[in-house]
Every structure is written in C-alpha cells, then in structure tokens.
C-alpha cells in the first residue's frame, strides 16, 4: 500500500509526463490547408493532390494534418460568395493554428493574398499550379513561396512538325473559361513565331458539337493542338480530358497536347507537362518551409517537369513510325499485344502443338524404321532360306556327285567302246548307232541331275506365289532325295493323294519337304539297317487343307521338346545348323499353314504340316 503523500507525487509525475507528451505531440503536428480553386475531383487536381499529399507525408518527420477547401471560385465568382466564403473560412479555422496554406491555381492565390491574413494568421502561403505568365507584371510579396507551372506549347508543336513535315494547317482547340482563355493567350504568344510558315486556325468559340464537326472535316496536312477546354462556346462546362477523347475519336488529323493527363485519352503525344510531378514539387517546398529551411535563392521556384511521351495506339492509328520520334521519347500505352495478353495460352498451345508435331514426327520415323526393319527381316528370311537350301544342297552333294557319276561313266564306256568298234572293218553301224543314242540318253540324264542341283541352289529373291499341284513338289523333292536315301540305305515309302491344288512358292515348299525327310533319315541312321524306314504321306483334311506327314522309325522326340525342335539354332546333330525346322516353320507360316511334331504310334517321330488348298475339294473325293 503506497502512502498518501507518495501516491500524490507519483500521480502528479505521471500526469505531468502525459501532458508534456500531449503538448509535444500537439506541438509537433503541422497543419496544412489546401485551397483548391478548381474542382478538386478533376483528374488533374486529383493527381496533383495525391502526389502532393504522398510526398508531404513521406518527406516530413512530423505529423501532418491536411485540410482541403474547394472554393470553386471559377464557377462561382460573385463578390457575395467571396465575402461569405471568407467569413466561413475564418470561422472554421478560428481555433486552428495553420502552418501553411497552399493555394492551387491563381484564383485561389488571389483569394489568399487578399484574405489570407484574416483567415490564416501567421500561416506561410504557398502556391502551385500557376504559370508565371499568369502573374503578368504583378509582383508577389516576398514571403510567398510557390512552384510555378512551366507550361510550354511550342515544344509540342515542334515535335508535331518533325513528325509531320508536310503540315500546312495547325488547328488550335481551346475553350472559353477564364482558365481556357489564359492558356490560349499563352499559346498564341508562343505559336506566333510559326504563323509565317503555317496556317493557324483557332477554334475557340464554337459549341462542342460544331467544334467536333469541324475537326472531322479538316483539310489534308493538318495537325490539331489541344490546349484545354473547360467551357465551350455555348457555355457548357466539360472536363477537358473527356473533350480530348471525343476530339480524338472523330478528328481526321492527329491531335497533340500538353498535359500528361491527356496521354491515353487520344493525343498522339508531345512535350507533356506532368501535373502529379508538380504536386510532388509543391509538397517538397512546403516541407522545407515547415521545417524552417529556406530553399536556396528565392522562395519561388520553377521546376521543369516536361516529358516527351507518346501514345502507342495513336502512333499506330496515324501510321507514325518510331523512327520519326525524338530520341528521348517514351512510348506508353502499348497495347498488350497478343503475345503479352495471352502469353501463357500461346505457350501452352504452342507446346501442345510442338508435342503433337514431335509425336507425329516420331511416329513417322518409327513407321519408316519399322518398314525398313520389315524389309530387312524379309531379306534375312530369304537369306536364311537360301542358307538352309545351300546346307541341304551340300548334304545332298554326295549323292548328287554319285548320281552324276553314273551317266558319265556310261558315256565314257560307250564312247570307248565305239572307239574300238570303229576300228573294225566294216564298222558295225547298227551297234554304233545304238551306242550314240545311249550316249545322248546318258548325257540328257546328266543335264537333268545338274539342273536339279541348280534348282536346289537357286536363290529366289521374291516370295512368288503361284498355283500348282502339290504332288509336283513332292515328286521333285523325292527325285532329289532318292539317291541319298539309297546311299544311306533308308527306304522311303510314299503314300500319295490325288491332285491337290495349292498356292505357294514351289521352291520353298520343296525345301520344307527336303528338310523333313533329311531329318527323318538322320533320325533313323542310328537304327539297325532293317529297321530304318521313312514314310511320307499326303492327305486332305477338313476338305479345305492338305496335310503332309513325314514319319521315321527313329528314337522319337522327348515330349517336352516337341515345341522346341522348331526353335532357331536348335539342333541335336553334331554338324547341324539348327535352321532346317525353323526355316520350315517360317515358310509354312508364310503359306498360312501350320507345322508341328508328334511322336508316332510305334517308336519314332512324325512331322506334319498343313496348307490351305487353293480350291477346296468337292465332297466325295476320297483318298487314293
């Protein structure tokens, strides 16, 4: 529990501190009042104020309290109003200590100069938004601070003339309000020096509709300079930048202007004055004044805030290329071209397209490669068939050589015999004649044997199919096989069906039969001579297919290997190539048939294949 006297002291201390804080806080707050003449909601004013407030509050360490007064003196000019306004303001700000009063635009300054002491005693007066020329010869009191507007009209005209060198007519658009007139006068003065080489028309006192009409029918080689239009010839009031828009949209000549606010509303561009920059400059000045630091030199400054800017859309509209623009030009309002606007859509679309194209390209390449691979595989198959055939031919070469030996022996013998017989006197002509005939017969046989061999070794580069009787193929194969069978001592028993027409490649089918029968003969080679036998049998199945089976009396094939025997390079023979059965399978499959192996009823294996008949046999035809 704090004692009485101590408690009191503490409370007093706290109260004192609090009061000091309040006072110091109060002492640190600056009060600034903005006095607008023109409507503060005008875009120009709004921009100026916004920038002013922003700059002021960010620049200053103190707390700034800002007040606004929209005096609207331009529109309400009566003395009665002014008087009442003065009183109103004086009453309003009686209790407020204003540190700075900022007048925006001349009428406001005039008002302040007249009544400022009364309304805002002790306040520093600052102006902005006023052109030096507006003051004319009037001298400002020295305690006034302010920033002059530096409006210039000729730079924009210069720029326009550089861009349109063939210009003959310059149309200057202005309004009828006081502000409008003031600006127009200023413009006229600046433009005077151009009047000797260009034709100037000043459209100032027309009602807006008439004005617009005129502007839409200007002669060629014209250029429009828009100053400002708050009030038209008929007395109607407007917001200038709305007017600019309307002017620009119907004019048949390019419009150049002076204010950065108008850029984007229809002017092509020009040397443009920035209102917001001006606001910032004014705020800076106010800060300095409040802080007590006087600017070097006078309190009144000119700050150049012109920027050369252009509207990209208007440039497009009037066909003005960037090359004709001044070097320091800034181009704004570039239409977000398709790229910028839809960049992501475009990218996604493009990548989808690219992906598609890539897939298609990939597929095309794939297809090409596959075709090439198919062709290659086709070639390889033919090569393998030929290889198999060569192997068969060399397997049979022994019997072929022997076979050839027979007729050759006979020919030699006959010829030698004839030789002897011819030396007899008289020669035995009938015998000699017979000998000659026999020689020719044997010679013919040799030719046959050789052509068999040639057929065996002939390369077919195509898988030609034609129609023939299957028995021809069987017979041809047997012709080749018989000598070999003889040599090995293996009898071949043949059971033949009647004619069977099929479509296929004779050479290849003969190859299959050779393979099967040679295999069968190999199988029985280990059997005792009297048990060797190979049976070849042709028959019809299901009236639509023919079946050929080759049976041997050998050891047979293990059950689990019945499938494997057809695999490439599968062989149980020491010198086997392992190709015979796999080639046979390929050939049969190419002919849309089937080939398989079974074990026979007795010992030994049976190899069978079926082929579709070219023409199904009629029902009723039986096996022979």
């Amino acid at each position, binding site marked *: 529990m704090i004692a009485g006297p101590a408690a009191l002291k503490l409370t007093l201390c706290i109260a004192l501190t609090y009061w000091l804080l309040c006072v110091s806080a109060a002492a640190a707050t600056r009060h600034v009042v903005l006095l607008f003449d023109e409507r503060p909601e005008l875009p120009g004013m709004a921009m100026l104020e916004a920038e002013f407030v922003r700059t002021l509050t960010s620049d200053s360490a103190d707390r700034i309290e800002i007040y606004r007064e929209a005096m609207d003196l331009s529109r309400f000019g009566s003395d009665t109003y002014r008087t009442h306004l003065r009183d109103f303001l004086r009453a309003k700000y009686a209790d407020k200590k204003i540190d700075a009063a900022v007048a925006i635009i001349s009428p406001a300054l005039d008002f302040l100069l007249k009544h400022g002491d009364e309304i805002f005693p002790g306040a520093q007066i600052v102006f902005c938004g006023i052109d030096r020329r507006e003051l004319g010869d009037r001298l400002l009191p020295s305690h006034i601070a302010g920033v002059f507007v530096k409006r210039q009209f000729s730079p924009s005209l210069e720029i326009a003339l550089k861009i349109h060198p063939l210009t003959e007519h310059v149309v200057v658009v202005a309004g009828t309000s006081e502000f409008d007139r003031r600006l127009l006068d200023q413009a006229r003065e600046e433009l005077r020096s151009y009047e000797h080489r260009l034709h100037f028309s000043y459209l100032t006192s027309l009602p807006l509709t008439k004005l617009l009409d005129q502007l839409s029918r200007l002669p060629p080689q014209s250029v429009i300079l828009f100053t400002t239009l708050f009030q038209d010839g008929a007395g109607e009031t407007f917001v200038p930048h709305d007017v600019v828009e309307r002017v620009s949209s119907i004019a048949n000549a390019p419009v150049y202007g002076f204010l950065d606010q108008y850029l984007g509303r229809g002017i092509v561009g020009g040397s443009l004055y920035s209102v917001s920059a001006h606001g910032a400059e004014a705020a800076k000045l106010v800060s300095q004044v409040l802080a007590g630091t006087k600017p070097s030199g006078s309190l009144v400054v000119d700050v150049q805030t012109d920027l050369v800017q252009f509207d990209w859309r208007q440039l497009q509209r009037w066909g003005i290329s960037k090359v004709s623009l001044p070097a320091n030009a800034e181009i704004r309002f570039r239409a977000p071209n398709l790229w910028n606007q839809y960049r992501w859509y475009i990218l996604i679309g493009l990548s989808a397209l690219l992906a598609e194209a890539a897939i298609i390209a990939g597929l095309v390449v794939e297809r090409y490669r596959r075709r090439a691979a198919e062709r290659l595989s086709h070639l390889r198959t033919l090569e393998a068939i030929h290889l198999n055939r060569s192997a068969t031919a060399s397997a049979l070469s*022994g*019997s072929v*050589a*022997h076979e*050839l*030996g*027979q*007729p*050759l*022996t*006979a*020919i*030699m*013998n*006959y*010829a*030698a*015999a004839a*030789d*002897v*017989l011819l030396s007899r006197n008289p020669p035995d002509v009938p*015998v000699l004649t017979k*000998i000659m005939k*026999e020689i020719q*017969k*044997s010679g013919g*046989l040799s030719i046959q044997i050789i052509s068999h061999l040639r057929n065996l070794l002939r390369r077919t580069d195509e898988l030609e199919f034609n129609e023939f009787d299957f028995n021809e193929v069987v017979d041809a194969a047997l012709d080749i096989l018989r000598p070999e069978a*003889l*040599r090995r*001592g293996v009898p071949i028993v043949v059971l033949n069906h009647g004619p069977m027409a099929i479509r296929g490649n004779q050479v290849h089918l003969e190859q299959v039969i050779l393979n099967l029968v040679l295999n069968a003969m190999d199988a029985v080679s280990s059997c005792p001579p009297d048990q060797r036998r190979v049976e070849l049998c042709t028959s019809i199945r299901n009236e639509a297919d023919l079946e050929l089976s080759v049976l041997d009396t050998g050891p047979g094939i293990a059950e689990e290997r019945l499938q494997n025997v057809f695999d490439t390079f599968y062989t149980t023979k020491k010198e086997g190539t392992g190709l015979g059965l796999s080639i046979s399978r390929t050939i049969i499959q190419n002919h849309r048939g089937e080939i398989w192996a079974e074990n026979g009823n007795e010992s030994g294996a049976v190899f069978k294949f079926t082929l579709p008949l070219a023409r199904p046999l009629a029902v009723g035809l039986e096996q022979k």
Partner: protein
Amino acid sequence: MPGDVLIYIIDDDEAVRNSLSLLLDAYGFMVRTFASAQEFLAAASSLRVSIVISDIRMPEMDGLELQQRLIELRLSFPLVLMTGDGDVPLAVQAMKAGALDFVEKPFAADAILKVATAASERLAERADEESLTATVSSRLAGLTPREREVLEGLLAGLPNKSIAYDLAISPRTVEIHRARVMDKMGAHSLPELVQLSLAAGMRPRQSR
C-alpha cells in the same frame, strides 16, 4: 588274256551295266550282266569262277554285303568294286577283306580295262596255282605212310642219317624212299620238292 576271260558285271544302273558290257565285249572279254547282287548270288554256284565287277552302292544288297556272302559261301570269285563319291573308305574295307581291286566312278575306259586285264592275269595265275596244288595234292595222296614220313623229314631239312635214326630204319632205306618220293612228286631237285610240298599245303614237321 581276253578271249575266253569271263567277266560278270553287277550294277543296278542299266546305262552303266550296258555300256560297260559293250566296252568289255569290244575288247574281247566275255561278259554276263546282273542287275542286282541277289540275282548273281542266286546263280553263283552254277557259274564258272571268274572276275566279278560290281557296284558298291546298290539297293537291298550292296557290294560289301555281296563280298561277305561270297566269303561265307566259299565262292572265291575275284572281286573288283566300282566306287562312287565318298565310297573309298568302303573300298579300303573291302580290300582288307580280300577284294582284288577297286575303281572310282566315273572312270575313263582304259582305267576299267587295265583293271579287267590285271584281274584276268591274276585269275590265270591263280588258276595255275590251283591246278598245281590239286596235282601235287593228289601226288601226295599217292605216297605211302613211310614215304610221307621221309618227306616230312626232308622238308625239315634233316640229313638222311637223322631221318633214318628217327624212323629207326637204315639210311639206305631212307635213300630208297627219298628217290621214290622224288619220283612220285615229280620233283627234280630237293628245293623243287620242298616248293611243291609247301604248295600242296604240307608243313615241315617239327623236330622231335
């Protein structure tokens, strides 16, 4: 020599058979052809023994089998084999088993003629040999047991005295037997006697 030399031709190939037959005939041989080994064997026992020229590769019974059968049947036809491709090993086998010769098909005419001629010479030699053997065998059969014993001793190279001692007869008796043996055997000298006896199949008696 050609003239009455008979050649049997066995080959399943008609052209070879006929042409060879014609050729050999033109050269003066007598020829008889058979289309298979079986056909020949069926007639073999009634045939005059002479040269057989046979193909090795034939269906049902091949040349080697024929050779085996002839050996079994003790039919000593001199055999010439005709070989085709790859048959040389078989031919060698046949030669070891006693074939006379072989010729590879296809052959030029003089090749077969050479073989045929050599075969016929060989045949003649054999015939001579055989007849000689037959003669000597019959002469041997005409010896008395004692004379035979003496002959055996002579073949062994024993002097008369030893023979006499072995046989327990006098040397003089041995001499008498010896003379009779020489006479009966038709030998004019001891070496000739030995030759004849060996040809007849006698073997020197081992010394006791």
